[in-house]
């Protein structure tokens, strides 16, 4: 902890907060202090209660027990009216939600002004607001075109608008919920530099994260939540990754690592694949996946990796170029054709594309092979066989559910991903296409996904790993290619790459430009 924070006055005090949703206790007796000029990282797995706690602070939820107190302008703590975002804003709390709360049809300026002027007034003092914002932008370094419509801004710019919204209202406490989830590494670095600057100006900052590296790099103090309880609250200096991971999960997490392995022959080959128009379209993409390797595709989402996954899984046909597997043409193959050819798909949005929510776990496990004789006879489903295989898969993949008949939508994200893994990997596919396979999963479930992908690799399958998480990519991939605006760079061996280079390429800079 930096010495400037020592003895700084408390600006926010959460005391003994408890919140229950039915049988689930999301927050259990959590107390937390935030000092002036301090950056506090709130660390925890999914479902640990971080976001719930912050939503109580901001008045989206009302706590069942406990109080929130905020320092007024004179420094004395005053209890906050529960359940009122309006009261939280007036008390000087600004919140940047994970999903931005911006109206896309309005300009940046209009979004910032929204709710700051009385609704009964007949005019809007935009000139004055513009001037004040100009000062704020200069002081904080958060520059953005105030006249631009939100829909035309990049994700990083939208986040700047969100922070400006809070600063414009003279926030003394700023809360950011998973602020780096949607940013490139460079944008994240800029964000944390800005936050440090704002903190040194006296702002108290809480940021929620489950990424250990950024928590260690950017915070003064770390609070760890697990299962709704606060299990640690300590200065960042003196923390290390392993210890934090254990605090988060409650047990030590084995990290799977890649063992050197000689890749085999080429399996999947894409040659000059081009698809329709738009930002997500592919332009003359070449890709060669070898047997027994993991090929990482790095990129900020929305740069064509979604389309690439669609082409490989047969959901979108290229306009030109070819796709072949083991030398066999698959360019115009359907999704069924791709599955039959031995390509397994772990879709990016597992809730939307990975399962059918109202259907049971067993049905979801059988759905891709429903026409195979083991699942049907003369067009009638073989329920016993399906149920028996579901039982095996539930044990083998440790799917936590009420049994094979439970509707899949009731499962947590990690367990839904295990259904997808069980379904796709059980048939020993030749190629595994894993799109953002660990996005939104906690440490334990992520470790599980990684282990399964490495197992597929060691049995000789080729794995395409599309991810935004550079740590994941660098640890698992044998080679990494970067996709930007639909152009795929040639893959290079991971040993020859570092985070900085990848980050630059993800943002669309080539080395020559950087130099």
């Amino acid at each position, binding site marked *: 902890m930096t010495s400037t924070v020592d003895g700084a006055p408390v600006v926010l005090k959460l005391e003994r907060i408890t919140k229950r949703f039915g049988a689930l206790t999301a927050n259990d007796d959590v107390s937390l202090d935030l000092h002036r000029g301090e950056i506090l990282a709130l660390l925890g797995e999914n479902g640990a209660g971080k976001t719930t706690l912050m*939503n109580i602070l*901001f008045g*989206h*939820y009302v706590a069942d027990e406990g109080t929130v107190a905020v320092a007024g302008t004179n420094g004395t703590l005053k209890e906050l009216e529960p359940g009122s*975002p*309006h009261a*939280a*804003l*007036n008390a000087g709390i600004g*919140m940047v*939600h994970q*999903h931005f*709360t*911006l*109206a*896309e*049809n*309005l300009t940046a300026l*209009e*979004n910032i*002004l*929204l*709710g*700051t*002027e*009385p*609704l*009964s*007034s*007949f*005019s*809007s003092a935009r000139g004055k607001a513009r001037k004040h914002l100009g000062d704020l932008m200069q002081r904080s370094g958060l520059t953005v075109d105030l006249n631009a419509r939100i829909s035309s801004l990049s994700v990083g710019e939208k986040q700047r608008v969100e922070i400006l*919204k809070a600063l414009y209202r003279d926030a003394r406490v700023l809360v950011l919920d998973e602020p780096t989830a949607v940013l490139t590494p460079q944008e994240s670095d800029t964000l944390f530099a800005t936050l440090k600057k704002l903190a040194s100006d006296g702002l108290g900052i809480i940021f929620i994260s489950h990424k250990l590296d950024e928590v260690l790099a950017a915070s003064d103090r770390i609070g760890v939540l697990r299962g709704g309880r606060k299990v640690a609250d300590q200065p960042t200096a003196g923390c290390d990754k392993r210890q934090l991971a254990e605090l988060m999960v409650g047990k030590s997490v084995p990290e799977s690592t890649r063992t050197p392995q000689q890749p085999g022959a080429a399996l999947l080959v894409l040659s000059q694949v081009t698809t329709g128009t738009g930002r997500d379209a592919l332009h003359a993409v070449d890709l060669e996946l070898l047997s027994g390797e993991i090929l990482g595709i790095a990129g900020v989402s929305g740069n064509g990796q979604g389309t690439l996954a669609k082409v490989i899984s047969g959901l979108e046909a290229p306009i030109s170029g070819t796709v072949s597997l083991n030398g066999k043409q698959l360019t115009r193959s359907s999704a069924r054709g791709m599955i039959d050819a031995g390509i397994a798909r772990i879709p990016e949005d597992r809730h939307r594309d990975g399962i059918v929510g109202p259907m049971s776990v067993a049905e979801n496990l059988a759905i891709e092979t429903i026409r195979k004789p083991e699942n049907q006879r003369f067009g009638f489903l073989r329920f016993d066989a399906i149920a028996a295989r579901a039982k095996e898969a539930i044990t083998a993949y440790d799917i936590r559910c009420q049994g094979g008949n439970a509707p899949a939508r009731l499962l947590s994200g990690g367990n839904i991903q295990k259904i997808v893994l069980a379904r796709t990997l059980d048939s020993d596919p030749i190629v595994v296409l894993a799109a953002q396979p660990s996005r939104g999963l906690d440490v334990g479930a992520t470790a599980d996904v990684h282990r399964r992908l490495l197992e597929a690799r060691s049995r000789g399958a080729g794995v395409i790993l599309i991810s935004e998480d550079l740590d994941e990519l660098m640890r698992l991939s044998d080679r990494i290619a970067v996709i930007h605006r639909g152009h795929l760079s040639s893959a290079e061996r991971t040993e020859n790459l570092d985070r900085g280079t990848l980050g630059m390429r993800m943002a669309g800079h080539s080395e020559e430009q950087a130099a």
Partner: protein
Amino acid sequence: MSDILDILLAANFWAAALRIATPLIFGVIGALVCERAGVLNLGIEGIFTAGAMAGWMAVWLGAGLWGGVLVAALAGGFFGLIHAILTVPLGLSQHVSGIGVTLFATSLSYFIYRTALPDVSSPPRIEAFKPLDIPVLSDLPFIGPALFQQTALTFLALAVVAVTAFVLYRTPLGLAIRAVGDNPSAVESQGLSVYGLRIGAVVAGSALMALGGAFLTMSAFDAFFFGMVNGRGWICIALTVFASWRPGKALLGALLFGAFDAFQVRLQTEVGSFIPGQVFLMMPYLLSIAALVLVARKADYPRALLVPYFRGQR
């Protein structure tokens, strides 16, 4: 060909177009205000009927013409409130609730009319709004009779367009309404009430719709008939899409429809002898469908239209 030119160059054609457009202007602006806040109000057809009946009856009972206008607006606001409560805090289907409100408001209006006047054979008449005689302007050649010999309600409709545009684009309230129809959580996170804004917009928009109905019984005609609204409300719903939810374009769309309608009536008398009259009656509707097809594909829908908002859920 010269017949058509004659029609288009006659002052009374343009006067008729503006007159026919007036109820649509009220209706389309009302629908636009509701939809900008994210609520589709299919109660519009019934609210037109309720406004027509309530305004007329208030005047018939001796309330005075402007008293009648006020009563019509209140009746519209009442049915708007029903729709708003069902769709905003309760989050029910806006389609189902809207159609329900249309059926309810229409039937209730007929019921009250029949109960109050059980045995009249011809509908009683009231002393309706008269065309205003504006010094100088009304006497201008061509323009005078075309634009300035309308009743006060037509000028009120034009004022409503201007005021609505001003509020939507120049005031903090309008900013909040546009925001709540795009992303309600943006509004809530800035400390404003999503429900308050939406309910307010639906009630205000519905009051405007009712004025469209009131125009029919208090200006266009001087009595109330069953079935007199005759789909005008539905036309307004289509016109909001045509207008891309912008008041200026909404006015243009209403005028265009009014012009089509005035044109077909005149064309009928010219060439009606060998083409059945129904063909002409279809024309404005066919043309509005054609206009919609051309415009609506590019329409910039309020993103939160039809999406209910529940606090603390995302």
